[in-house]
């Protein structure tokens, strides 16, 4: 009896100790952390200094936009609680009250005005292309005017991150870039270039503190090394899992592979000018619609998907994905022009090019997934209908200035295009609008495509402030474009992620890994 | 009679080359007594230097000592290990090289190079070593010795450098000094100064010296005894004055005749006809026969032994020359 009581007491003591220990433990566990392997280091932490992916991912941790873009490309309130149109071109945005920057400053309309003002003068001025003027109505209301009715202004504003006017002015551009201050869910702790960026949760975040207390981003450029880092436990999540490593990671139940079709459409722009720079013929054969159709039919997109992309790509149906305005339900390049080398050859003959022609394809060798292999496959496929494809491959540093409009050295260009704003119109207006007609239109129309009907439809779409109408006009344009074939869409890349099984993460449509949406389970 | 300081008995030093075995030293015997100067004479390529290196155990592969004994102070040093041999070198036996321009290490001060010997072979402290170096430099006739210690070899003239080399050789009180053509590389005017210096130093320290040279004139001034070498073999040896006055071997005669003399300036200098033959291709018989005016058929058949001829002279010749009157 005595003994038993003793044991019981001991047991209680023991349990108490255990309890103490477990609270200590849970306190420790409460400090959840996550390490993410990115493809590269952030270049800037000033959202108006650059826009590549790694920087973008970091921007959205540190700053907030007025309008939040959700993982599925829907849009909702961000720093702006609500907004309304007062007339066709005037928007009023009401700011959330009591939002604090990391330095303790409160968010005011003046910060938004400062941000937009600075944006207009920055390298990223393009983000504010559809903003004509702006002013603060009161401390928490901002008025923004668009140059013409523009239904998707909130979508655009999702890419404009709000800076603290006082801080940026005091610290200067350089410091603002190195030691950013925003309202975002995370604060910067340390940035060791090319090694790691450490963030800690902003306890005062307006939408509630993040579930993960510490997030470390590590740049690991080599895909295979990234996989290795995941497998050795150095990181918890990796971006851009190597296509090659998918099976290996999948087969290990400590890890999971996550996929999401990306928004990046890999397309071939076809020169429509009468004389094309790399074709040694008096008349550019590709001005003939039948030749363009033959080209589409000669390209076996599913073979590229299977063999080169390991099944990890989505053949594109149209120029924009289904989630976007301008997507025409039920229409698909793959159904309209299925792979059919025989038909393709017949079309070539019909157009008078039975013997084919020689043309140069300009492409990158380090920008898109397996870009080199894709163009080699294209060469062999088009070779079958006697289009002799010469490949001109270059690194992206040379590529984008080489192909820049007016593209006077190019006949065929393979490049990618994505529209994270979810609005097909923004793509159509710059890529398919006749060149040189209107400022801000047709500036990347690489094939000099011109169709008055398409121009008119884009004009109409941009003239309405109603989203539904805009969508309608753009869909009409899509219909014409799919018949005209100014570009051949190939596929969307697949965004691949791998993570430890206990990491709860859903890939975003815009590829922006956002720790605020991520949790780690025990 | 006391045992000589150095006694070479049938020394054989061979070099293995691609072309065959070269017997650079082929059964050489002679001795050196304490306090004595022995001249080792012969044309270049005659194996004189190799004897010097053999004594010090400095013959590098592909060469090796193939036979014979090198008895120094009663023990055969040719059988010593490297470590023991190091104690012999520099302390018991020192060597002076032909070219003073190259025998001093260009990157160290001469003080350091002198000091090295003392550090290796004495227990003196630094100050004492320095004093000794200075004194030795003064002894070899270098003025301002103290400051010169910190100078580098390239700051000295050739003659001065040879003085330094001699100083180094004498520094540890060696009992035998091997001087390999010590004056050949020097100006004629400096030559005799150096020779006098060496002679004086040897006499003062009581050391013995082997003077290796091709120049009989030098030997006649310096040496007590002469050993004449030809193709790796001793062809004649004896007291200097006897050899000079009346050699028994035609080769020595030839060497003597090629020395210019002030007395007979009308006579043309006589050179030994021909050149030293390739040692590798020597067959049986006397190796000098091809150049010898007195050669007989016997000379091609049998190699002559080194035998006493007359007086102190030993010669290896079937037909030794008669004593000149």
């Amino acid at each position: 009896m005595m003994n038993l009581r003793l044991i019981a007491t001991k047991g209680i003591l023991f349990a108490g100790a255990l309890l103490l220990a477990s609270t200590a433990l849970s306190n420790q566990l409460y400090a959840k952390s996550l390490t993410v392997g990115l493809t590269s280091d952030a270049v800037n932490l000033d959202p108006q200094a650059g826009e590549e992916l790694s920087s973008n991912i970091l921007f959205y941790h540190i700053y907030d936009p007025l309008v939040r873009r959700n993982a599925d490309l829907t849009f909702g309130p961000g720093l702006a609680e609500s907004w309304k149109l007062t007339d066709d071109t005037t928007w009023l945005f009401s700011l959330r009250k009591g939002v604090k920057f990391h330095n303790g400053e409160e968010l005011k309309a003046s910060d938004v005005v400062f941000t937009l003002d600075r944006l207009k003068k920055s390298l990223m001025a393009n983000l504010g292309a559809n903003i004509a003027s702006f002013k603060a109505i009161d401390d928490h209301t901002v008025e923004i005017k668009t140059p013409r009715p523009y239904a998707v202004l909130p979508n655009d504003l999702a890419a404009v991150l709000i800076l603290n006017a006082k801080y940026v002015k005091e610290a200067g551009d350089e410091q603002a870039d190195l030691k950013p201050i925003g309202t975002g869910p995370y604060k910067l702790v340390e940035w060791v270039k090319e090694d790691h960026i450490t963030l800690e949760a902003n306890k005062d975040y307006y939408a509630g503190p993040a579930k993960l207390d510490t997030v470390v981003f590590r740049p690991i450029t080599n895909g295979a090394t990234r996989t290795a880092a995941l497998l050795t436990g150095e990181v918890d999540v990796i971006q851009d899992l190597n296509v090659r490593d998918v099976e290996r990671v999948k087969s290990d139940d400590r890890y999971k592979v996550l996929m999401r079709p990306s928004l990046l459409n890999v397309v071939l722009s076809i020169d429509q000018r009468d004389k094309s720079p790399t074709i040694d013929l008096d008349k550019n054969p590709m001005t003939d619609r039948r030749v363009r159709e033959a080209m589409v039919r000669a390209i076996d997109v599913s073979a590229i998907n299977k063999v080169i992309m390991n099944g990890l790509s989505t053949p594109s149906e149209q120029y924009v994905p289904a989630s976007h305005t301008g997507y025409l339900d039920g229409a698909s390049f793959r159904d309209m022009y299925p792979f059919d080398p025989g038909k393709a050859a017949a079309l070539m003959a019909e157009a008078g090019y039975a013997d084919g022609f020689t043309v140069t394809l300009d492409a990158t060798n380090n920008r898109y997934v397996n870009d080199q292999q894709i163009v080699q496959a294209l060469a062999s496929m088009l070779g079958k209908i006697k289009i002799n494809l010469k490949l001109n491959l270059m690194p992206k540093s040379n590529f984008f200035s080489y192909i820049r409009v007016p593209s006077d050295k190019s006949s065929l260009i393979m490049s990618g295009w994505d529209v994270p704003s979810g609005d097909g119109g923004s793509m159509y207006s710059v890529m398919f609008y006749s060149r040189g007609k209107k400022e801000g239109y047709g500036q990347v129309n690489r094939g000099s495509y011109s169709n008055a009907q398409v121009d008119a439809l884009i004009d109409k779409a941009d003239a309405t402030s109603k989203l539904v109408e805009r969508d309608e006009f753009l869909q009409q344009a899509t219909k014409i474009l799919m018949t005209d074939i100014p570009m051949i869409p190939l596929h969307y890349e697949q965004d691949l992620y791998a993570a430890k099984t206990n990491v709860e993460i859903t890939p975003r449509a815009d590829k922006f890994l956002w720790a605020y949406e991520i949790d780690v389970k025990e | 009679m006391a045992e000589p300081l150095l006694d070479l008995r049938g020394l054989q030093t061979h070099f293995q080359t691609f072309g065959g075995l070269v017997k650079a030293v082929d059964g050489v015997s002679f001795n050196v007594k304490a306090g004595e100067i022995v001249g080792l004479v012969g044309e270049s390529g005659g194996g004189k230097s190799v004897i010097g290196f053999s004594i010090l155990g400095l013959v590098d592969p592909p060469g090796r000592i193939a036979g014979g004994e090198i008895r120094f102070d009663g023990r055969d040093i040719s059988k010593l290990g490297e470590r023991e041999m190091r104690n012999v070198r520099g302390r018991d036996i020192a060597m002076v090289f032909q070219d003073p321009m190259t025998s001093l290490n260009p990157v160290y001060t001469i003080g350091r190079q002198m000091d090295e010997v003392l550090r290796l072979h004495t227990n003196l402290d630094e100050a004492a070593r320095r004093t000794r170096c200075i004194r030795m430099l003064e002894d070899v006739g270098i003025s301002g010795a103290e400051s010169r210690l910190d100078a580098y070899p390239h700051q000295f003239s050739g003659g001065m450098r040879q003085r330094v080399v001699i100083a180094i050789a004498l520094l540890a009180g060696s009992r035998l000094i091997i001087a390999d053509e010590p004056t050949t590389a020097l100006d004629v005017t400096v030559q005799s100064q150096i020779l006098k210096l060496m002679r004086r130093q040897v006499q003062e320290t009581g050391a013995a010296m082997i003077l290796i040279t091709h120049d009989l004139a030098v030997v006649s001034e310096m040496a007590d005894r002469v050993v004449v070498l030809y193709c790796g073999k001793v062809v004649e040896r004896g007291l200097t004055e006897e050899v000079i006055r009346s050699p028994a071997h035609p080769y020595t005669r030839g060497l003597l005749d090629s020395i210019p003399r002030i007395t007979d300036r009308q006579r043309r200098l006589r050179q030994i006809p021909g050149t030293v033959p390739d040692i590798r291709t020597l067959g049986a018989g006397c190796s000098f026969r091809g150049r010898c005016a007195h050669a007989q058929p016997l000379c091609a058949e049998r190699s002559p032994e080194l035998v006493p001829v007359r007086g102190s002279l030993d010669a290896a010749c079937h037909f030794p020359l008669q004593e000149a009157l």
Partner: protein
Amino acid sequence: MQRLLSSEFVHNYRHNIPAVLGSLLVLAFACLAIFGPLLVWQDPYDVSQLELMDSFKPPVWLDGGDPHYLLGTDGQGRDVLASIIYGARISAFIGIAAMACSCVIGTTLGLISGYYGGMLDAVIMRVADIQLSFPSMLIALFLMSAFGNGIGMILIALTAVGWVVYARTVRGSTLSEIQKEYIQAARVAGLSDTEIIRRHVLPNVLTPLIVVSTIQVGSFILIEASLSFLGVGVPITEPSLGLLVKEGFDVLFSGIWWTSAFPGLFIMFLVFGINLFGDFLRDELNPRLR
């Protein structure tokens, strides 16, 4: 010279195992590069001959190896051995052609510099000095990044870094050569400068260049491989050995080692053979060490 070639040189050569080994290696590689395409059954760059189902087959001696593909296949079902043979042709061509260009340009400049001296000499030699203070790899890397990739560009970049050594060597030997009396005599005899250079100076300055050229081919092959590895060398349509290694880099971590290991091994043996041979030539032709 003739006698040297016929007797001692040949004698030494035959008794120098490394030299024989080196030249055998070089010879083997040369044969492989010239006749190799006849030996392999697949043209790795004819897409129609590729069987995508055969991708990443390991070498034949491992599990899953296919006797068709001795050294395995890459991600597109390309025979690694065939790729290596085709790649070696490109690597060797670049190495040799760039050496030839460097040699011609460098020798010309060196002759001019040494023979005429003066301002021209000063300028050429200063440029050479400045260039020598930079590693050739860095210069080539920079040129390639400025001009874009391609075989022609590589040749230009390699020539730009390679001429210096010839110019300096030739200038040196020219200077010592024109001191000699027979040149003076030729001048007195009224031979023109070009004739003196061509007939008397040039033949006498060429010997040291043989060694330089041999070694340089090896180092050019390495530099080209490095540039291609960094992605600023040859284009994917003309893959050299270096590019093959680069292509294999990504899959190396997935345990697929043969697509990069074999091309690299091949580069090593190729350059090793060249260096062995060059070493022998250096020992033979450099009078200072003989």
